[in-house]
């Protein structure tokens, strides 16, 4: 699973052989940056980097973490928006805790509204379902009266 984690995000990596893990450890600064940025934009946790730290150990380039975090931080600016919060809320996912305090306000607002919208929709659907059920029950009960 870990190996899969390592392999998937890096665009330059092909396959999941052990030598590709080696490549990931030696990835360039810009690759780490891009990986961090993509991770944030797709709502992943910053902690996915832990897997690299564990697997690569000393093979990890010294600047890898900084580049990854820089990319992730920049990615969060794109990610922590009203729209993404709304989308996440609407999809019924949990509130993502990745957004830093100073930029999370809009994201959380979006999430609440998205969740409310979803809840409303679900409520309406439930209401409609019950209504339908009730009308069916009415139809079924009515002939007996006659």
């Amino acid at each position: 699973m870990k190996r899969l984690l390592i392999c998937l995000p890096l665009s330059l990596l092909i396959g999941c052989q052990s030598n590709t893990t080696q490549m990931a450890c030696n990835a360039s600064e810009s690759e780490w940056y891009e990986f961090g940025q993509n991770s944030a934009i797709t709502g992943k946790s910053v902690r996915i980097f832990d897997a690299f730290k564990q697997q690569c150990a000393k093979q990890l380039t010294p600047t890898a973490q900084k580049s990854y975090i820089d990319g992730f931080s920049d990615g969060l600016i794109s990610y922590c928006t009203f729209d993404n919060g709304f989308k996440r809320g609407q999809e019924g996912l949990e509130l993502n805790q990745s957004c830093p305090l100073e930029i999370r306000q809009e994201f959380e607002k979006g999430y609440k509204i998205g969740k409310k919208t979803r809840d409303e929709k679900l409520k309406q659907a439930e209401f409609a379902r019950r209504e339908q059920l009730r009308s069916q029950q009415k139809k079924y009960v009515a002939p007996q009266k006659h």
Partner: protein
Amino acid sequence: MKNLKQIIIAALLSQSLCSTVAFASSSYSQFKIEVAPPTFVLPQFTGPYTEKEANIAPEELETAEHLKSLLEQGKREQVLKELEAFYEIELSVAMIMLKAQLYFALEDYDKAEQAYLSSLSRSPQLIRAHSDLGQLYLLKGKLEKAREHFSNAISYGSQDALIYGQLAYLNLSLHGPYSAISAYQQALSLEPTQEQWQQGLFIALTQAKMYPAAQALLSELIAKHPNDHKLWLNQAILKLELDNNVEALASLEMAILLGNEQQNNYKIAAQLHMQLDSFDRAVELISYHLNNFDLEMNSLNTYLTWLGQRGLWSQSQEILASLETKVQTMSAHKQSVIYFHHALIAQQLNSTPKAVENFKLSIEKNPNNGMALIEYANYLASNKQFTQAETLLLRAEALNDSKKEALLARAQLYVDLQNYQAALKTLKNIANQYKETKGIWQQITLIENIIKTKEQQKT
């Protein structure tokens, strides 16, 4: 011929034959009273919990409480270790600030700087980060950067007297007094009794030559604290700036009376007394200075030269006598200076054997004492021992500090011997090496004329 001798002697004197005299003369006109310079003080580590600018994220409250209890137990390293386990992006700015402050407190300045910069990249208007980073840069000697962050802290609304004071200090150091006055005034308005800001404002006003304002500030402070010797020193500085030496001396004496123990101030007070002809007090101060502080040869030279210029030989003797017990424990270099002055006094008092003995001792203790070589040579020349005198002058010429004076003395020696060709050659040598020497070309022309006249007389 007598005229020519006088002219060259005058030239010798005017061209600072004796460097000690030159030192004494130059220091006579430039008084520089020693006062404590404006300083900065680093604030104590206080922790971030009282800060309102950066908030802790709700999900961090539990961790924050835990860290707070560790901090209260003084476990700073452990707190840092726990904070370092997080990626910075996972922490709120408040937590990064805590990290930065801990690094700062543990004197890991590079990491502290990085953490403050990281806080500012996320919250650029964070006053506390700007002010702390300013302190850090101040400590690291990066004054321009420190100034920039203090200035930012104030721009974003800091009302901390310390920040105004630091900005004022940096402006004073980097951009001159005018840029510091307003910030010092702000600091003083927030902390009216803080001595640092009073002193800083006074220095800035004085440097900006705003003397009435400086005097008004000082008068107010002296009225409040009449026994503060630092204020009297400031008063002395101000009076000297205003060329009022009498009042400057009175203030300086007051400062000394109230316990000011800065060495240079004794020297200046003595100098001012000499200038105002109050010799007894001058000698008293000189003796006190020489006997209570590390004996510094420049000061001794200066004092004895002043006294010599005024013909106060017995006072000079008195001063040297007071040092008699210490002489054997002094370095050879210092002993050489003392024997040299003994020789000069003996020479003035016509005590020939003693003069010769002391000149010899002085040169023996320090063969590179150029002044002793020259003065002894002059003494020998005046006693017609020209060959010996010439040898000593040639030795003095080998020393950079006394080269010019030795050359001038040798030129004089040749004039005394009526060896005008040698005198001319030596004077031309001086003119080539020391082009700034005033009157040298007149001397050369004069000697050339004498040579011509002599040749005409022969034909």
